[in-house]
């Protein structure tokens, strides 16, 4: 099977599209650079037109429309050829296929076409089946779940030699579950991944890396992070006013003078400066520090050590990896529980004794540590090694995410506040382990269920690398912030209501 060939599929649910201006749709497409786009959920001709207009060169899958009597849409992909319509190409074994049906009733026809080989798919690379309206149903009174059309889906999966992955339109973008479908003869598994057109919660768009092995990794971003609303301090009404001034993109905002911005209703000089600053950050990829505060206090002229932990889930039963990167010596130390996943104490004690002995006098830096890492470390110390609690309490701990984002001390590029997105936007080149926090947790969970099965033993080196990568990404972001342009907004912008004071034109 060809290794790691992967198709980038962007999902733009119509609920998200209705919240995006046309230039914001363009911004989204520019940001993700997808190979293929789909609009899951109900039939929506306006949404289709919106996307076709914004991305004339990319195929857009919206079979719900039933254009020219078309019920099944079929594309093939390989790195060499890019995406092509199936009708214009012949199938090659190594090509990834993307099939989409107008509605669930069409599945019968698709099944028979695949079974009779009237429709060919690449046998050595995965086939992705988009079902725009599919959602999982559950019943809390009977404590049961229903995967609609599960027999049909299993039959399709079984008649093809390659992996088949189902992309369910109406499931949330975070949904990624391997279904076990029990029948009288056999037990089959089927990977179902959500495309995000569900009604609850906020509107997100997501890009899916669909690999030839059939796995899918999603990057979901809130729709409000695109277009003018991505700018700190720009809401729906300000965005509208800006558009009326022919100012449609962040680049347009950047080209505007702060004075012009400040003249818009409801925007004072301080806010204008911040909006302009953020446009600058997004376009340039350089961070901007807004206050005269420093993110951390270092000790003994030493840089902070960067810490990251890995757990088995969001309410952890074990912290199974502690990774500490020391920029002073450019060394990384990892503590991993590889033998007894039901015992959180050994790895915890190994970490805490080493840390206190070697780095007790150093400042510790994390990304969202106050939200997760520090309370978890404290909780596990209280449970398993209470004798070290006081020593740990004496350590100077900092959280760069809290300082920059939550406390509003800096503006960062990147469309989410996830460390890897921020670091990537700041030019950090990741090691490319192909792991995410959720995936590394899931692999460890699998190990917890079968600790003695050598087949399922995780590739420890890869997981160590993933954690190290996060620590070094954090160091990269920290350096970018300490090196960044600094504009103390708290001191400026108070000079006059009309925003005419000097200083402002420095940008």
């Amino acid at each position: 099977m060809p290794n790691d060939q992967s198709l980038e599929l962007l999902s733009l649910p119509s609920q998200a599209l209705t919240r995006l201006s046309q230039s914001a749709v363009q911004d989204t497409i520019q940001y993700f650079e997808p190979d293929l786009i789909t609009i899951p959920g109900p039939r929506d001709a306006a949404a289709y037109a919106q996307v076709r207009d914004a991305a004339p060169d990319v195929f857009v899958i919206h079979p719900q429309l039933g254009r020219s009597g078309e019920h099944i849409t079929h594309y093939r992909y390989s790195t060499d050829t890019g995406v092509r319509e199936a009708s214009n190409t012949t199938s090659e074994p190594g090509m990834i296929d993307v099939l989409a049906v107008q509605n669930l009733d069409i599945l019968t026809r698709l099944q028979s076409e695949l079974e009779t080989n009237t429709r060919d798919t690449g046998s050595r690379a995965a086939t992705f089946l988009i079902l725009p309206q599919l959602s999982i149903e559950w019943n809390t009174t009977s404590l049961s779940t229903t995967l609609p059309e599960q027999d049909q889906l299993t039959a399709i999966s079984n008649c093809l030699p390659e992996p088949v992955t189902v992309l369910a339109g109406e499931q949330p973008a975070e949904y990624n579950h391997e279904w076990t479908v029990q029948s009288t003869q056999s037990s089959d598994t089927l990977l179902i991944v959500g495309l995000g057109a569900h009604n609850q919660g906020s509107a997100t768009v997501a890009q899916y890396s669909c690999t030839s092995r059939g796995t899918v990794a999603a990057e979901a971003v809130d729709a409000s992070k695109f277009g003018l609303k991505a700018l700190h301090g720009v809401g729906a009404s300000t965005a509208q006013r800006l558009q009326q001034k022919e100012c449609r993109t962040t680049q347009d905002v950047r080209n505007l003078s702060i004075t012009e911005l400040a003249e818009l209703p409801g925007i004072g000089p301080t806010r204008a400066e911040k909006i302009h600053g953020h446009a600058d950050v997004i376009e340039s990829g350089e961070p901007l520090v807004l206050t005269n505060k420093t993110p951390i206090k270092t000790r003994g002229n030493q840089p902070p050590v960067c810490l990251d932990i890995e757990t088995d889930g969001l309410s952890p039963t074990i912290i199974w990896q502690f990774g500490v990167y020391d920029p002073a010596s450019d060394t990384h130390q990892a503590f991993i529980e590889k033998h007894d996943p039901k015992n959180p104490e050994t790895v915890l004690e190994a970490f805490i004794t080493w840390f206190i002995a070697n780095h007790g006098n150093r400042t510790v830096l994390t990304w969202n540590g106050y939200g997760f890492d520090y309370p978890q470390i404290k909780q596990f110390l209280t449970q398993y090694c209470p004798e070290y609690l006081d020593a740990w309490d004496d350590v100077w701990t900092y959280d760069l995410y809290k300082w920059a984002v939550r406390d509003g001390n800096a503006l960062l590029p990147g469309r989410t506040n996830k460390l890897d997105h921020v670091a990537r936007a700041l030019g950090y080149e990741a090691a490319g382990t192909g792991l995410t926090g959720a995936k590394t947790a899931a692999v460890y969970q699998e190990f917890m269920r079968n600790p003695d099965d050598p087949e399922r033993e995780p590739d420890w080196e890869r997981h160590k690398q993933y954690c190290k990568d996060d620590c070094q990404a954090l160091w990269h972001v920290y350096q970018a912030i300490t090196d960044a342009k600094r504009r103390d907004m708290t001191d400026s912008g108070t000079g006059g209501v009309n925003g005419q004071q000097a200083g402002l034109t420095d940008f």
Partner: protein
Amino acid sequence: MSEHNTPDTGSQIGMTGDTLLDTFPRTSLTSESDFIETIQIPEKPAETVPAGDILRPELAEPYPFDLFSHQAAALNALEDNDNVTIATSTSSGKTHIYGLQIARNLLDAGVLNADGTRATERNDASTALCVYPMKALTKDQHESLTDLYDQLGLDIRVETYDGDTTGDRRAIRNEADVILTNFAALNVYLEHHDKWSRFYSALDLVAIDESHTYTGIEGMHVAWILRRMKRVATYWGGNPQYTLTSATIGNPHAHSLELLNEPVTVIDDDGSPHGPRDIVLWNPPPRDKTRDATPDDAPFTTTDQDSETDESDTEFVAERVPASVEAPKVFNHLTSSEIRTLLFCPSRKLTELSIQRADDHRKHNTREYDLTSKPQREAYNAGLGRRTRHSREHQFKTDVLTGLATTSALELGIDIGDLDATVLMGYPGQRQSFWQRIGRAGREASHSLSVLVGDHRTLDQYIINHPEYLLENDVEDAVVDTSNNSVFATHVLCASDEIALTEDDLDTFAETDRLRAAVQMWREAGYIDGYLDAAAHYCGPSRPQTQVNLYGNNDTDYRLELAPDVDRDHWGLPDDLDLEPVEQNRAYRDYHEGAVRLQNGQQFEVVNVDEERPQPVIQLKPVDHDYYTRTQNKVNVLDADSEETRDINGFTLHFGRGTVLVHYHSYDQMYISNSEPKQQMLATETPPILMDTQLCWVEVPDDVETALVRKYQHYGLETGVDPDETGMAHLGYVAGLHAAEHATIQTAPLELRVDKNDLGGLATLVMDTHYTHNEYDEITDSISESFEAAKHALEQRTQELGGQTRSGWFIYDGVEGGLGFARAIYDNFEALCERARDQLENCQCGQPNGCPACTFDENCGNDNKPLLRQSAVDVLDQLLGDADREDLSEHLPDDDYGGNRRPVVFYS
């Protein structure tokens, strides 16, 4: 409960029952009137034990009282490490039991020195959690515990921690010895249990106050919150003992066991005293409808004496002055005589109306009452919002107010000072609740008066006809049921968020199969990650705890707000209406568009219901209408699946689950003045609700059915139906089933602590068509919530089943997933039927189809038609074995009787 064992201050006689009857301005009223019954309850002395026999000297010496015998027994059981439930009367010193146990724990743990000073600043050794049903009660008990510890000279840190806490929350978590809260708050705080590690690791005692209030939906949620709390405590190393304090209930042991999932010792031998007490059972005089004022003449006056006839004139009484009209008069009379009185009303609306009606009564009796000094009276209910409620509590306590017209909100131990009298507008539905309300009047040795003003409906008339019922020893069972999967599933999410679920939770948190099924469901639905053999973590939208709604089962409540175009200044309305949200079933029943509700003295009309958002919103507009609204519904039962059956004299009783389709389809506008309809059958335009729920049903044996169909085959108009609906041979019989269904639901609260508004029923001639059948698909799958489709499907099913079906009636829990009420009815069916039969037989209405006191049900979807008392009595007599099957033989046909074709009819 805040004060007890205070020295005897001597009997201060407020007003006796006789004085009330003598002075009340109505000539026909005397203590000999046969619609008035007075029960005199003699004084009961205290049974006490010297504190020194039970408590160590450090506590016994400063403790200013002897201990009541039940307090002593409870403290001994706690000393033996038992969990204890204390089920005794109001103000019997229950708070002091857990208050003293906490003190003993702190002394044992060395947190306190023997002299009561603190041995350590930090307390990692012994903490206690006290949980109350309402914030107002928490406030009260906080004072009570603080007073106790002041008296004992103990430096114990008692802190309240709930939504109103504004101070340093972290300091409370890290330093308090005792934390007081409520279950809604506890539910939320469990998520961040790591911040509470000190508190939970040292947790020695959990006190659950007024535990009898945790029944139905709220009881289920509390049971699961306690199980989640126990997981958290275990995680941090705490292993608490539980103390439950309860009013007297029939099944304190079973109820506590279900709440706690741990063994418990019950102490219910009440050693506390009470003073002499008169209870007047007051049946309002009969009402002659023909002399009613027409609505147009007097839209706002209350029905007054001119419409009351003398009891002796009539042999049968088909209608009486409603308690909602009569009780405010008694309330006025007492408060005008400066008797501090609580009037308990069944609804928020009536608390408001009663104040108005009491004032009217006063104005209409100028000779009796001194109009220059008007007694101060106000309404009190949960709809008023916290600020207003607190202010009225305070005003009553300080004697600024002489009377409060309240809902059940003041039934519990909120301290509003002493009072002399209580008036109950209608029987509150439960003996336990009746005594709790009665018990609010009079403290210790003083004389107190309570008046139950009966309504003309089944329960009230049963009580007034059988006053001995009130004095029977066995009290209703409190029903709490943890088998509702829908509620359980929500708490599984919360638990997995708090601490990952593992195999350690099998059979400790929940039964193995059930927990496995729930985790698998949530994993497949995308809300839980991982497996129980490793760890199952929550991975859905943050804070699943906010999805727990203690008072309902739906995910989202309906928020009440003012419509945007309302001129607040014009109506004198505050910015924030301060009204509590309502759950879906209530929203559909009471807040459909066009509904008129009274809130805080102001009428509001529902102008818009917006369900197209995460939290649905109901918009209200202030109005000034001469009517209120009443909602009509219809019901069907589909796909009932029997899980358990038993035989009762040839009748088959079932318990099982099925789907109930309810539609609040229309409503009536009723004149406020006389409750007569102004306009009827206006569409609500709300869709039907489908509920998977628990059911109990009974099948009548063929021979009984055949005989009774024939016996009543000529009944028609007697059943209350219109002339064009007569002429069906089965009418008399099915009218009896319908009446029996109503009566068994109406009398259920006599045996069980259930709310009959959470029960519904359906009488039917075609029982089998409402069942699941292996050879057929479920009807629910094909009808998409349409009543017409359901009825059509049932007719078709009847044909297919070829007449092989029996008759009978269903009783169901009116909440998704069920409440355990149908289950409790299944277990107590004979007792219920006996009460129902007695009331049907003894009612004085003289109407073949009965009256509101025997067969009528205000929630009936068929406008209380057709109903037939006598055939219902026959059915129930046969079921109870009180009539011989031979008695029916004269009605059985001689040959093989083909009978008339069985019509597909059912009545709710």
